């Protein structure tokens, strides 16, 4: 009897990823105009993973993840961006770093900047990024949780430059069926998909990608332990309970 196995070496493109690719295609068509794009959604929906996948597979893009230090020092952000652009030994001077960044972007005008976890940074940070996109004409894609939208909306000069925001939504039950098929090669019924989809806790919604993935991992382990070749409804229920146990405790 063959055991079920979860294949982590497969990237399953959900509707969210497809929406991101469409947005990026549209954004690239307008190269030559400084502007923002925005990818937002709750935690665990696969935003960063999708953006990293896009960045890795497409040349002319820069990806940086914000750090807490940027909140108090824009110089640190500028220095990090300098390093990403291949500028060696950036000086401890905001003006120098800014000019070096703009010059590097002038040389590579098709560059797209991805900045992750922007929602924890303030409006001052957005002003610097706005200057970079305005002067270099390179688009900037900001990624963050839903409060990013309100942060951007408070700054009209940023919001009016924003292209079309892409919202990452939780997985649908049909996505769970496709995910189980592609990642684990297992056919699950609509009922089982419905159970695995029930990942609602105090802080997460149904269809949270991270929790659905965890539930599927547990379901496969339990099915193997029980000697079952399929994931039954009972196994799925136990797996979901195990998957969201840690989240409900918080």
């Amino acid at each position, binding site marked *: 009897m063959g055991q079920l196995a979860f294949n*982590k*070496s*497969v*990237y399953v493109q959900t509707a969210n990823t497809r929406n991101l690719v469409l947005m990026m*295609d549209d954004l*690239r*068509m307008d*190269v030559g105009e400084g502007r923002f794009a925005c990818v937002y959604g709750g935690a665990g929906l696969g935003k960063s*993973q999708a953006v*990293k*996948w896009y*960045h*890795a*597979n*497409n*040349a*002319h893009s*820069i*990806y940086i*993840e914000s*750090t807490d230090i940027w909140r108090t020092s824009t110089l640190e952000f500028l220095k990090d961006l300098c*390093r*990403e*652009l*291949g500028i*060696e030994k950036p000086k401890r001077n905001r003006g120098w770093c800014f000019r070096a960044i703009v010059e590097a972007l002038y040389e590579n005008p*098709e560059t797209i900047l991805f900045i992750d976890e922007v929602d924890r940074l303030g409006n001052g940070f957005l002003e610097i990024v706005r200057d970079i996109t305005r002067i270099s004409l390179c688009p900037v894609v900001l990624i963050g949780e839903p409060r990013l939208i309100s942060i951007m909306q408070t700054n009209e000069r940023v919001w009016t430059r924003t292209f079309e925001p892409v919202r990452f939504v939780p997985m649908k039950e049909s996505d769970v069926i496709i995910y189980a098929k592609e990642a684990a090669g297992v056919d699950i019924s609509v009922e089982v998909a419905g159970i695995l989809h029930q990942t609602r806790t105090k802080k997460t919604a149904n269809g949270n990608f991270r929790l659905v993935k965890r539930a599927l991992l547990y379901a496969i382990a339990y099915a193997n332990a029980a000697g079952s070749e399929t994931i039954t409804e009972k196994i799925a229920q136990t797996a979901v309970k195990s998957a969201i146990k840690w989240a409900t405790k918080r």
Partner: protein
Amino acid sequence: MVSFAAQVRAILRRSATDTGITYEEIARQLDLVSRDKKQPLYGTLRDFIRRGECERISEGLVRYVPHNRPKAPPKTACMWRLIRANRNGTITVEDLMALCTVAEATAREYLRLLTKHGIVRRIDRPGNQLSKYQLINDPGPEPVRNDVNAAKLRRLRAARKKALKQIQVAQGAIDDVNAALDKARCAVANMGDDRNT
């Protein structure tokens, strides 16, 4: 089988980008004569215009706009970009396989090379769990390449090319010998006929 859209795209690509090409000319090249047969062409061109693949210059005249989606970087660059994007966390062989679509051996070899150069640190985990790798020494955005392996592959490729050339020469010689043999056999056969007669 080539799709209808691909056929239209090929004609557009071949056409001059400055003066453009007429709908009639595309239809003629596709052997679409009647109005009914031309309908799918109109639909395809409408889709192309909407997607920005071509633009309408005037009534019935379109121009091809090369699609500006950038080429995917080579696999080494793809893996390096992903490792750097995950510098605040860790990465596994499976992540590289999933997000860069590379074989397990390729991902392992690349991570082994980076570990050897002191760029990433391997974190072993208990049981059968895969090791994690952490970027500890970032040399910059330029991909770290496996120069030794690249040189080895270059040598192998050159040796293969040389061997193929030698095979070609040998094949030519064998063909010559076969032709000479055929000629000799023919001559012998003719001699035999002469003796019989």
